[in-house]
C-alpha cells in the first residue's frame, strides 16, 4: 500500500516536472510583450471596507480607459501582513507585468517588493508608505495636508481661541500620525490661542474604543469647545459620544473620512467638517502610473491624490458628494 502511495507521488512529480519542462520554452520570455494586454495586479490591505472598494472602482476605470487587465486581490484575512506577502509572491510567480500595492506594513513588505523588482516586475505603492526605494512611484493622500485643513477649519470656526481635544488614532499608524502632526503643527503655528486640553490620548482601532475614550474625556472636560478626530472610526466614536452627552452641534467637531453616518452628522450640523480623501483617484492613478511606466514614460516619484474639506455648505456639490458617498455600483458588479 505504501508503495502505491509512493508511486502516485512519484507519478505526480513526474507529471509536474514533465509539464513544467514543456511549458518552460513558451513562458521564458517574461515582461511586457507587444500585442498582449498588460496585466496589473492591484493588492489592497483588505477587500471589505468602503475605502478599498473605491480604490477598486478607480483601478477598474483606469483599466478600461487604458485597455489593460486589472487583477484585484487582497490578503485573505483583512490586515494580515503575512498573507499580503504571500499574495505579492504569488503574483510574482504568475509573472504579471506590474504590481500596484497598498502595503500593510512599511517594513514587512520591503522584501517581497525587492523580489518583484529583481524579477523585473515594477511596483507602484499606493495609500501607505514603504521603506526603501525599490518602488517606481508612491501615489497617496497627503495626510499632513489633511491635518492642516482640519486645523484651519476648527480654528476659523472658533475664532482662533478656545479649548480643544486632539484625539489620536493609534500608535504606529503612519497615515493617521501624519494627519495628527499636520493638525498639531498648524494649531501651534497659526492659532496660538487654541488650548489643547488633550493631545496624547489614543482612540484605538475600533469605534467602540473611540466612543469610550471620547465619553471619558467629555466627562472630565465638559467645557470643551472643539474636537478633531483623525479617521473614520475615531470620528464616528466621538460623534456618538457627543450626541449622547448632548454636546453635538454645540462643540465644533472636525473629523476625517466619510461614511453614511458621518454624512448624516454633517447634514444635521453635528459635524462641522470632514476631511475626505480620494481613494477612487488613488486606485485610478495607481494603475495609470504603472501603465505609463510600463509604456516607457517617466513618472513622478510621489503623486498626491488630494484631500478636500467637506462642510454642510458644499456637501451637495457633485464633486464633493461623489467623495462623501461614492456610487460604485456602476463600476464594480
Amino acid at each position: 500500500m505504501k508503495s502505491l502511495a509512493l508511486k502516485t507521488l512519484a507519478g505526480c512529480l513526474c507529471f509536474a516536472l514533465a509539464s513544467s519542462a514543456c511549458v518552460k520554452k513558451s513562458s521564458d520570455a517574461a515582461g511586457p510583450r507587444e500585442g498582449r494586454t498588460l496585466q496589473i495586479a492591484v493588492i489592497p490591505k483588505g477587500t471589505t471596507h468602503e475605502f478599498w472598494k473605491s480604490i477598486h472602482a478607480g483601478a477598474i476605470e483606469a483599466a478600461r480607459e487604458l485597455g489593460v487587465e486589472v487583477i484585484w486581490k487582497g490578503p485573505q484575512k483583512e490586515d494580515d501582513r503575512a498573507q499580503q506577502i504571500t499574495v505579492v509572491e504569488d503574483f510574482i510567480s504568475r509573472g504579471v507585468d506590474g504590481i500596484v500595492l497598498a502595503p500593510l506594513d512599511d517594513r514587512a513588505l520591503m522584501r517581497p517588493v525587492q523580489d518583484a523588482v529583481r524579477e523585473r516586475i515594477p511596483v507602484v505603492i499606493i495609500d501607505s508608505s514603504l521603506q526603501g526605494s525599490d518602488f517606481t512611484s508612491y501615489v497617496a493622500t497627503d495626510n499632513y495636508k489633511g491635518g492642516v485643513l482640519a486645523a484651519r477649519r476648527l480654528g476659523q470656526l472658533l475664532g482662533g481661541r478656545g479649548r480643544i481635544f486632539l484625539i489620536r488614532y493609534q500608535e504606529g499608524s503612519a497615515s493617521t500620525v501624519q494627519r495628527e502632526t499636520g493638525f498639531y503643527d498648524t494649531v501651534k503655528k497659526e492659532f496660538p490661542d487654541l488650548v489643547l486640553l488633550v493631545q496624547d490620548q489614543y482612540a484605538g482601532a475600533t469605534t467602540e474604543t473611540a466612543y469610550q475614550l471620547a465619553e471619558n474625556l467629555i466627562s472630565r472636560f465638559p467645557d470643551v469647545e472643539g474636537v478633531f478626530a483623525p479617521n473614520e472610526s475615531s470620528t464616528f466614536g466621538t460623534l456618538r459620544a457627543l450626541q449622547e452627552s448632548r454636546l453635538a452641534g454645540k462643540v465644533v467637531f472636525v473629523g476625517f473620512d466619510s461614511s453614511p453616518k458621518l454624512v448624516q452628522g454633517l447634514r444635521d450640523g453635528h459635524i462641522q467638517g470632514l476631511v475626505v480623501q480620494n481613494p477612487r483617484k488613488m486606485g485610478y492613478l495607481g494603475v495609470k502610473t504603472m501603465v505609463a511606466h510600463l509604456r516607457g514614460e517617466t513618472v513622478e516619484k510621489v503623486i498626491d491624490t488630494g484631500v478636500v474639506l467637506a462642510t454642510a455648505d458644499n456637501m451637495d456639490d457633485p464633486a464633493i458628494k461623489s467623495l462623501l458617498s461614492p456610487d460604485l455600483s456602476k463600476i464594480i458588479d
Partner: protein
Amino acid sequence: MSRQRPAGLQKALNVLGPFIGLALVIALFALIPEVQGRFLRFANFKSVATQSVIVALGALGMTFIIVSGGIDLSAASNIALSSVITAYAINAGAAPLVAVLLGVLTGGLVGLANGALVTRLRLIPFIVTLGMMGIARGAAKWIAGNQKIDAPMTWANEFMARSPRPSWLLLAPGVWIVILLAVAMAVVLRYTVFGRHVFAIGSNESAARLCGIRTSRVKILVYSVAGLFCGLSGVMEFSRLTVGDPTVAVGLELDIIAAVVIGGGSLNGGEGSILGTMVGVMIMSFLRNGCTMMGWPNYIQEIIIGAIIVIAVTLDRLRHRGE
C-alpha cells in the same frame, strides 16, 4: 492499527486520499491555460514551499497532539508570541542565534504549560489551550507594547528568503529545516517507543495506562515538543515578516489543524501520519497559490478549503464506520 486483510483496501484509500487530493489540486491549475505555464514552474514551487513553512512546522507538532487524542488551539498565538520574543531579543541587542533559541524555547515553555495543565488539572485540552490562546496572544501584545517591533536585519531573516543566499541551496533554508524535521518526526512517530505510546494513548488512554504507559509524562512531552515546533514556526514568521508582529497568524491554528485532518489525522486520536499532514499542508498552500494566481476572489478560496475539510472529515468518519 492492525493490518488486517478486509481493511486493506480501505487503508490504502486512507493513505492515498490526501495524495489524490494534492494531485487533483495541482492538475486543476496545471490545466487552466491562463496560469498553466507559470504554475508549474520551479520558481512557483519554491515560493509555495516557502509559504508552507510556518503552517508545516506547526502541523508537525499538531500531528503528535492529535494522534494522542488532544488538540492545541493555542498554536497560532504561540507562533505570534515566539516571533515577538525573537524580534524583541534581536532589538535588545542579543546575538541572532540567542534570539532564535529564545524564540524556540518560548514556544516550548507555552507547550510545557499546556501539557502540565492538561495532565495535572485533568482539564480537557480544548479548554486549556483555548485559555492559553488568549494568554499567549495577550502576552505577545504586551511584550510588543501593542504594536509591531522593528528589528534590524540579521541572518535570522535569511531562513525564509525566497532566493536563498548560497544559491545552491535551491530552496529557502526554512524549507530544508521542515523537510529534515518532517523525516525525523515521521521516524519518531512510527518507529520509536515514544511514538507508539502516543498512538496507544490516542487509541485508548485508559488501556494504555493499564499497560504501564506513563500517560501523563508522554502527554507533557507531546505538548512540549509541539510547543517547540510552534516556537520554531514563530522564528520563521519573524524571519519572513522582518518585524515582530503580535497580531500575526490570527486563526492560523485552524489551518494547522485542518492540514492534519486533511492528511488523515483523526480528531478522535490514534490516527495520523507526518507524511499525510505534510500533504495536507501542501494541498492548502497550492490552493491558495493557485487561487491568487488566477486572481479569484478570496471567498472562492475560503469555500474550497472549507469544502475540502468537510470532505476529509467525512472520509475520516467513513473509515471509523468501516472498522
